[in-house]
Structure formats: C-alpha cells, structure tokens
C-alpha cells in the first residue's frame, strides 16, 4: 500500500513546493467562439476582440475596465477649433512586434484604411465624421472632423480602430502584428490561439509570459474542462446553470459583472399592430422581467427599463414605468381594438437568452391574449430576415455595442423607430463635448424611447466568469468584449 502511494504523494509534494516558490506565469483561458480571423479592423466578430484587444493591438485610446476612456498609443491630446480638430501626442517608445517603429504614419495609414471606399471595417460608421488625418510630425497627429464630435475619443477606443503597421496589415487576419504587451505566437485553427509576452513593450511589462485561448462553445464541455483543470479561467462562462456549484468550491472564484449588452424584445415599429404605441405599451406591461431573468438566465442579469447600461453614470432607472401589469396590458389591447385576436411572430436567434427567454415571453404574452408564434433562426438567417429584411413582428436580441442609443435615431434601423425629436437630440449630442450636458442629453434620450415604448427592455446581460481562485486581475465587467490580460497574475 505504502509503495503504491509514495510516488504520487512525492509528485504532489514536489508540485506544492515548487508552486510555493514560483507563481505560474502562464494561463489557459476558455473562450466560447473562435475568432474567424485576428484582425479586429476587418470583421465584426466579438471573438476577435476577445483575443487581441489590448493584448496584441492598441489604439490611440482604450477602454479601461470600468468603461472609461484612457490614453493608449496617444499619450495625450488637445482639442482645438471648437471641437473640430483633435491633436494627439504619440508614444515615442512604442514598437510593433516585428521591430518596426510606431509613428504618425501608422496612425494615418490605419484610419485612412478604415475609412477607404473599399474598406471592410465592420464599424466604418465610427469614422464617418472624420474629414482627414494630418501628420504634424512623426510623433504628433491631428484628426480633423467634419463637425464637432464628443464621441471621437470613445470611438477611437474600439477594437475596430486599433493601429496597424502598413507592412504587416495585409496579413493581420492570420499573423497579427501590433504594439501591445503580448505578441501573437501560434494559432491552431479550431483549437487555440497562443500569445506570449513582448519584451520591448513601451508600457508596464505584463506579469504573464504566455496565454492560451482555448475555444469551447459547448456549455457541458466548458464545465468539464474547468472541473478537469484543463482551463485556468473562463471569463465569459457559457453555463450559468453550474455557477452556484462552482461558487461554493474553494478552488474557483466566480466573478459576476455587467456587459454592454442590453437584451431587448424588439418590436417592428413600422408595421401593424406595433405601429400603435398602445399595443407596444401593452406588450411591455405583459412582461415579467424577473421571471425571464430567473428562468432563462438562472437569475443573472439586471432589469432595465430603457436602452442604456445601468453601470453608466448617465443611466436613468425607468423600470417602474414599464412594470409588470397584465391588467393594464389587457385594457390597452382592448382600447387598441385587439382583444384576444392578436397573433404575431417571435423570431429568435440562437443564443440561450433568446431561445429560453422567448419561451417565457410567449407564455407571458399568451396571458394577456397575444399569441406569439416562435420561429427559431440561425444567426445568418436572423441577420437576413430580421435585421436586414425587417421581416418580423417581435424578436429578442442583446445589443452588445457600447453606448449604442444612437441606433434609435436611425429610422432605417431594423425596429424602424422614427422620431424627429430624438433624431435632433442625438445630433446635438454628437456635437456636445461638455460631460454634464452630454449626461443631460443622454438622459432625455433614454426618457423619450421609454415613453414611446419603442421596444420592451428586458435586462442587461451579465458577465459571469469562472477562474482559478489564485488568478487575480481579470476584468469583472466588459465595457467592450475583451479579455485584457495586462493586469492578470497568479497569486503566490
């Protein structure tokens, strides 16, 4: 007996001793979706940013963990000409991973490339207001705008606005070369991406020497991979049903945070019956948010009453205005002439929040006399039919872009809300740079869309992460869909 157990015991002891002396410097993270490519300026997939944002690529500005805007490749900036001209001072010591020096040329190249006619940048709209990019000297650059834009620094923080070197940009999809603290090492398609520490990084060196992103989309597979110790962390964990169980296990810590994802039941404002605000309001009061959060999300999610993130300082809590009130719903439906005769379609994309949430919402609508026929769609189909074709009555979707209330000012957006007052308000917001006035305008906008019951606002998507309890420094919230590893380390 003794002999059989001595060897493993010795191994465990050796491991424990060596662990006590040196903290680990590598990490294996699980991510749900594999990025289609590694160039954040040429694709929409959030999965790209999950791997490369702040790790491999940097922009002039960047998001901090709390969603604030921080300097990155721009050390500082000044605003001239009444907000029409932004002058950025650039980092003198930044280099690309292939040794090329970073300079104003790279900034001009990257922004011009994103704005070009044949650009395939998924967020080309971020650059629409830029008139031109002007090189003042190798370390100073000016961005001239068509009209003042209070959002510019925010827009430049997106993954779609990172800076690439002209020499390596064409291959960024498979061999990304950035200025970040990690450089790309290896991509085994279908399985993992590996990044390693970049020794000549201009900023504070990172503690991790190596990070591996492993792609696991199946919730059960994610669970067993965490339990088997194949993964050190799963920052955006896909199986909320196991969180309670992992939370009580001292080996893991569960971190709950918020995302930029407003989950809504969108209504087609341009077609009957949802072109009638009474019907929209009836739908809103028919919905019991807590029931959806509990039933579809295992209790993870924050109720919202408008299209805005609760963690944002400008957030207005308008949930009371759309409280669960089935009697009021029935009365409103009767008033609108739809007593018990309303049959609509509810088109659902693949995510769990939509599929499970859709079942619950259909049941809630049935209670007030609306029959919602569920149609399950694949993502591509959803984009084609609902988003592009606007062929839907109701749909459930999480809008994960940060600060995207501006979509309500676009009458051509899929839910087709057309309100001249809001459009004027958003135009003045775009030209406003004073933070207090911006907050005021943002709150007015939130109130307008809540008053018009444009959509039914369900909940802010939670971000639940699971990690080995000795790992510190992972982001709790996700102001953008990234796994910023710059501050991550193992506790000794």
């Amino acid at each position, binding site marked *: 007996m003794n002999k059989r157990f001595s060897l493993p015991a010795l191994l465990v002891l050796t491991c424990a001793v060596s662990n006590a002396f040196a903290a680990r410097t590598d990490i294996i993270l699980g991510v749900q979706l*594999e990025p*289609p*490519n590694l160039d954040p300026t040429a*694709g*929409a*997939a959030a999965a790209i940013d999950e791997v490369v944002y702040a790790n491999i690529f940097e922009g002039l500005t960047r998001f901090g963990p709390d969603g604030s805007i921080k300097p990155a490749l721009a050390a500082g900036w000044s605003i001239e000409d009444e907000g029409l001209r932004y002058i950025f001072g650039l980092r003198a010591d930044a280099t690309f991973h292939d040794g090329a020096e970073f300079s104003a040329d790279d900034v001009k190249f990257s922004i011009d490339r994103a704005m070009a*006619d*044949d*650009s*395939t*940048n*998924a*967020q*080309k*709209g971020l650059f629409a207001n830029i008139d031109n990019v002007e090189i003042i000297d190798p370390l100073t650059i000016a961005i001239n705008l068509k009209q003042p834009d209070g959002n510019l620094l925010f827009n430049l923080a997106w993954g779609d606005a990172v800076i690439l070197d002209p020499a390596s940009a064409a291959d960024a*999809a*498979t061999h990304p070369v950035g200025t970040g603290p990690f450089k790309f090492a290896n991509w*085994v*398609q*279908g*399985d*993992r991406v590996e990044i390693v520490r970049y020794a000549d990084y201009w900023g504070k060196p990172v503690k991790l020497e190596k990070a591996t992103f*492993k*792609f*696991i*989309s*199946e919730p*059960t*597979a994610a669970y*067993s*991979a965490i*339990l*088997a*110790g*194949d993964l050190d962390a799963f920052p955006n964990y896909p199986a909320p049903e196991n969180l309670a169980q992992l939370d009580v296990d001292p080996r893991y810590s569960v971190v709950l945070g918020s995302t930029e994802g407003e989950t809504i039941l969108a209504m087609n404002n341009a077609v009957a019956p949802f072109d009638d605000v009474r019907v929209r309001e009836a739908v809103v009061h028919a919905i019991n948010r807590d029931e959806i959060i509990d039933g579809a999300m295992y209790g993870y999610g924050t109720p919202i009453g408008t299209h805005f993130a609760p963690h944002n300082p400008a957030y207005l809590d308008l949930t009371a205005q759309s409280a669960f009130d089935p009697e009021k719903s029935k009365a409103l439906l009767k008033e609108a002439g739809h007593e018990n005769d309303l049959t609509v379609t509810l088109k659902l994309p*693949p995510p769990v929040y939509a599929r499970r949430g859709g079942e619950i919402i259909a049941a809630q609508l049935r209670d007030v006399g609306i029959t919602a026929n569920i149609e399950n769609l*694949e*993502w*591509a*189909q959803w*984009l*084609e*039919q609902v*988003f*592009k074709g606007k062929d839907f009555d109701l749909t459930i979707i999480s*809008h994960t*872009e940060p600060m995207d209330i501006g979509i309500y000012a676009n009458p051509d957006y899929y839910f087709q809300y057309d309100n001249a007052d809001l459009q004027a308000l958003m135009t003045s917001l775009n030209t406003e740079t004073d933070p207090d006035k911006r907050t005021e305008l943002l709150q007015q906008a939130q109130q307008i869309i809540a008053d018009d019951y444009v959509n039914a606002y369900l909940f802010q998507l939670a971000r639940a992460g699971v990690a080995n309890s000795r790992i510190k420094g992972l982001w709790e919230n996700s102001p953008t869909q990234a796994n910023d590893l710059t501050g991550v380390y193992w506790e000794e």
Partner: protein
Amino acid sequence: MLHYLLKRSASLLATLLVASLIVFVVIEVVPGDPASYMLGMNAQPDTIAALRTELGLDESRVARYLSWVSGMVQGDFGRSYTYRTPVAEMVAERLWISLPLASYALVLSTLLAFPAGIWAASRRGGIADTAVMGFTQLGIAIPNFWFALLLVLLFAVNLGWFTAGGFSGWQSGIFAGLKSLTLPAVSLALPQAAILTRVMRSSLLDVLNEDFMRTARAKGLSSRQAMLRHALRNAMIPVLTIMGLQFSFLIAGAIIIENVFFLPGLGRLIFQSIAQRDLIVVESVIMLLVFAVVMVTFLIDLAYAWVDPRLRQQRR
C-alpha cells in the same frame, strides 16, 4: 478486371459530378449572406458590398459553380470566407484528427466485436450468447454523446487520467495525441461495436448451417477449426459491408462527439462553417465526404472479391 475498374471509375465520376451540383444548389438556396454575417449588425451597405466583391460573391451563380468545380479538379478548394485561408489546407489539418479518430474507433470496435460475435455464435442460446446480446442492445440504445459525457466525468473530472477534451497536437508525440483521442474514440466505438457484434453473430450463424460446413466437419476439422478456416471467411461479406458504412459514418457523424470533446476535427469544422455561412468550406467538406463514402464503397467491393473467390470469377 480492367473493364470493371473503368466502369466503376466512370460511375464514380458521374456520382461526384451530380453530388457537386446538388450540394451547390442546396447550399446556395439556404438563406444568409456570408458577408453580412461576417460584418455584423453595425455594418454599412457599402462595406458589405466591398466584402462581397472581395469574396467573389457578386459573380453569377453559374460562374461560381464552374470555378468551384474546375478548382476542385485541380486540387484547389478555394479560400474560406471567414478564415481567409485555403480550404484545402484547413481540411487537411482537420483530417489529421478526424481520420485517426475514425480509424481508432474502427479498430476498437472491431477488436471488441469480432471476438464477441464469434463467441456468441459458437455458444448460440447459451448464457454467453444471451449476455453478449444483452450488452449489444445496451450499446445500441445508449446515445454516444451521453456516453461521452459519462466518460469525461469519470476519467477526466474524477480520476484525472485524461483531459476533458481538446487536442494536444501530433507534434507533442504520438502517445499524447492518441491519449487525447482515446475517450472520443471509445464513445464513438461502443455503439458501432454493438452493431458489428450482432451482424457478425447472425452472419456466422447463417454460414454454420451451410453444406460446406458439414463437409468441413466431416473431413475431420474440429468445430473451432471449421469456424476459423471456413465459416469466418464466408461470413465476412455482410460484416465488411457494415464496416464500410460505419467508416463513412464515423467520419461524417463525429460532429457531436467532436463538439463534446472540443476536438478541432472535420465535424466541428462543418458545424462552425454552417453557422458562419462559410459556404465554400461547407461545400468542399461535403464533397470530400461524398468522395470518401464513394471510395470506401468501391474499396469494400474490391474486398468482397478478395474474401469470396466466386465474385472474382464472375467479374473476369
């Protein structure tokens, strides 16, 4: 034999051509534009148009079909929309996991099924036979993804002998590679073994009643010798047929298992590509599978001739 081979090759080519047409048409009809999928919700129409041009999606369907087929003939499967890398390279990489996995599973199921089938047939009606038949019923009834989850819980989570999934890569050694394929192979092999055992048993029982078996015994062979020398070989035709079908199934049907074990194989590639509307990858992989199935059937036909000399006679 030459005439036979030529005839078979011609029908093989015709099958592939028809299949390519069907695959192309079916996939083109499926709604969902790859470019708008890739660019997501905030994309502007001119961006989508630019990407469609870049991907060659704005050409006519006929032109795209012809360039696809003529490319494949020259071994060029095109470029993946999402990964922007040659499809042939991607597929080759994935085949290095799926093919060994399928072979591993086939070897395991054969090693289980042959002895079990022979044993059950030689003890027909006895306890061994009943027990084997009972187990095969269970093997057929248990869904392999569920069995796979059980294997993971036991051998990866509780015992820690294997990893829960993923693939270490062949560069880390054959042993490490086989180790990461073991649990998936076992879960794929079990239902296959159950089916194969039943086919083996019933096929042997049929042969045992044949006249030549009586002759063999009359010549003085023991029942074991008669079984191994004469019965087994003659019982192989249905068994080979099933094995051929199973091999095609193993390659195409590993999708669920590859997802449970997050193995970067061909099955997972198809699954991802369909969701991402990476049409060119879906089309090419399906064509490859059609080719594999047709080839396996062809090889099984040749194997019939090898095990049964009478079939060779007819073909001359």
